[in-house]
C-alpha cells in the first residue's frame, strides 16, 4: 500500500463523513418543510433561501448555549452518552456503499467508507450500541423522566432489534442463493452488486412479469421489507414509536436534562440514524446504487449511481416523515404487542418460508 492508496482511503472516508453531515443538515430542514406542508403551514423560511440554513442557525445557537449539569447526574456517563450516540451513528453509515466503484487509472475507488466483509453484522452491532447512549443518558441524568425514557428505550430496542435482525437474515439468505458465486455474503457492496439486472434472472418461472422488474430484493422479500421498515422506525425512535421521548408524558425523555451541544449531538445522532436506516433499506431492498445508466460514460457514469442511491434513500426518508405526520404515538402495550406478537413471529414464519423456497430451488422437491 503506497501513499496514493492511503490518500484514496482517507478521501473516501472524509467524503462519506462530509456527505453524511451535509445530508443531515439538509434532512432536518427537509423534514420540517415536509411536516409544515402536510400541516398547511409555511415552515422555516427565514435563514437562507427557503430557510435551507435553518439547521445551521440552530446549530450555531446551540453552540453558544450553556451546558447545564444536573446536581444528581453521574457526570462521567452523563458526558459520555452524547458521544456514544453520535459515534455509532456515523460508523453505521461508513459501511453503506453510496455509489458505484469507478476506475481512475489502474485503481478502483469504491464510494463507501470501508467495505467490511461483515457489513450487515457491523450495522446491527452499531445500531445496538446506539441504544446504550439512550440508556446511559436516561440513567445518568439523575432525574425521573429521563430514567423512564431510558428504561423504555431498553425494552423497545430489545423487542425491535430481533425483528430487524430476522428480516435482514431473510434478505441475506435470499441473496446468497441468487448470487453469482453461490456463497452467502454479509458485505453490503456484494449485496448491492447481486441486485443488478432484472428479476427474471432469479425467478425465470414468472418471466412474463419479472423480466420487467429490477432484481431488487424488495420483490421476493416484500414481507421482510415491511418488517424491516416497521422495525427501523422503532429503532430510530421515530413517531409512532417515539415513546422514548414522548413529550406529553416524559417531557423530553432521555434528553430532558441535556442542553447546548450535548443536546445537539443527540439530535444529530437521531437524524443521522434516520438517514442511515433509509440508506440501509435502499441498499438491502431497493438495489442500492443500481439503476439505469443510459449508456453514459466518464463522469456521468460515476455520478449517476450516487444519484440513484440518494433518490431511493429519499423515497424511504419521505416515508419516515409521512408516517410521522400521519400516525399518533402508540400506547406502550401496543408497541410491545406489535413487536413480540406480530413482527417477531411474522419474521420467523417468513424466514422459514423463504428458507423452504430457497431449499426447493437449490435441491428440488424432496419427493422428486
Amino acid at each position, binding site marked *: 500500500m503506497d501513499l496514493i492508496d492511503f490518500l484514496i482511503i482517507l478521501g473516501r472516508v472524509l467524503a462519506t463523513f462530509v456527505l453524511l453531515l451535509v445530508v443531515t443538515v439538509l434532512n432536518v430542514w427537509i423534514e420540517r418543510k415536509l411536516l409544515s406542508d402536510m400541516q*398547511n403551514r409555511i415552515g422555516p423560511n427565514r435563514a437562507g433561501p427557503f430557510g435551507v440554513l435553518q439547521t445551521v442557525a440552530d446549530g450555531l445557537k446551540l453552540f453558544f448555549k450553556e451546558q447545564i449539569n444536573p446536581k444528581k447526574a453521574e457526570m462521567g456517563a452523563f458526558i459520555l452518552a452524547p458521544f456514544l450516540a453520535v459515534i455509532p451513528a456515523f460508523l453505521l453509515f461508513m459501511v453503506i456503499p453510496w455509489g458505484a466503484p469507478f476506475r481512475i487509472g489502474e485503481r478502483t475507488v469504491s464510494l463507501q467508507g470501508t467495505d467490511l466483509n461483515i457489513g450487515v453484522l457491523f450495522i446491527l452491532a452499531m445500531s445496538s450500541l446506539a441504544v446504550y447512549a439512550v440508556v446511559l443518558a436516561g440513567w445518568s441524568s439523575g432525574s425521573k423522566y429521563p430514567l423512564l425514557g431510558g428504561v423504555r428505550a431498553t425494552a423497545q430496542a430489545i423487542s425491535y432489534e430481533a425483528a430487524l435482525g430476522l428480516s435482514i437474515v431473510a434478505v441475506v439468505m435470499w441473496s446468497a442463493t441468487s448470487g453469482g458465486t453461490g456463497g452467502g455474503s454479509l458485505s453490503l457492496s456484494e449485496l448491492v452488486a447481486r441486485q443488478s439486472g432484472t428479476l427474471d434472472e432469479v425467478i425465470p418461472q414468472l418471466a412474463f412479469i419479472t423480466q420487467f422488474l429490477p432484481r431488487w430484493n424488495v420483490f421476493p422479500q416484500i414481507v421482510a421489507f415491511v418488517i424491516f421498515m416497521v422495525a427501523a422506525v422503532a429503532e430510530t425512535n421515530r413517531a409512532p414509536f417515539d415513546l422514548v421521548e414522548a413529550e406529553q408524558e416524559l417531557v423530553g425523555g432521555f434528553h430532558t436534562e441535556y442542553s447546548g451541544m450535548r443536546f445537539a449531538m443527540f439530535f444529530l445522532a437521531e437524524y443521522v440514524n434516520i438517514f442511515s436506516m433509509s440508506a440501509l433499506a435502499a441498499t438491502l431492498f431497493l438495489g442500492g446504487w443500481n439503476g439505469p445508466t443510459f449508456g453514459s460514460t466518464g463522469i456521468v457514469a460515476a455520478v449517476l449511481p450516487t444519484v440513484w442511491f440518494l433518490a431511493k434513500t429519499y423515497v424511504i426518508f419521505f416515508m419516515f416523515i409521512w408516517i410521522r405526520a400521519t400516525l399518533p404515538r402508540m400506547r406502550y402495550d401496543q408497541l410491545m404487542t406489535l413487536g413480540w406478537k406480530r413482527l417477531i413471529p411474522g419474521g420467523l414464519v417468513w424466514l422459514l418460508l423463504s428458507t423452504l423456497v430457497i431449499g426447493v430451488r437449490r435441491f428440488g422437491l424432496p419427493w422428486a
Partner: protein
Amino acid sequence: MGVISELVKGLRVTGRQMFQPRVTIEYPKVFRDKPPRFHGRHVLNRYPDGMEKCIGCELCAGACPARCIYVRGQDNPADAPVSPGERFGFVYEINMLRCIFCALCVEACPTEAITMTHLFEMSTTNRSDAIYTKDELLMDVDGKVPHMFPDDALANLEELAVADGWLRATAPSGNAAYEGVAQWQGTPGSVDWDPEPDQETRDS
C-alpha cells in the same frame, strides 16, 4: 389487513394536505383581511364641527367588565365648550393591559363617542405605555387618530381609520323593527355616516 387499509387512509389525508393552500400567512409581510366587526383599539370621536362627542357620563366605565376605563367629567367652560353637552370628558384613560376588547363600552356610550378601530398592534415594553390617555385616544379635528407608537414598524396606521361595524339593537328612534339590523360606520369620527338606506321610510 385492516391495519394496512387504515394506515393508507391516514397517509392519504396527510398526503392530500401537501397540495392544499397554506392557512398560515407571513404576518408582518402579509396582512390578513380582518372581519368587518373586528375589535381593535379604541378611539374617541368628534362631531364634524370639531366638538368632542364624549360628555363625561362614565357609562363606559360602568359597563366595562374589566374595569379598565377611568373617566372624569368636568363642566364645559361657558365661553369655549369642548362638547355639545353640559359636561365633557376631562380625563379619559383606558388600560389596554386589562381591556378584553368586548366593546361593551361602545354599546354603553349614549353619544357614540367611543368606538373601536381595526388596529391591534399595541405591544409595549413598559406597563405605563399600555395606559392610553386622551392624547392617544382622541382624534384631531380632521379625523386623524394618534397612536401611542406612531413609528411602530408593525402597526399599519391606516387601520385606525377603519371602524368596527356593530349591530344596532334598535333604530335611533327606538323602533323595534330594527333589532339586529347591521349598521356599518365608514370611518371613525368626524364623518356622519349614512343611515340604513330605507331607514326613514321604515321609521315613519
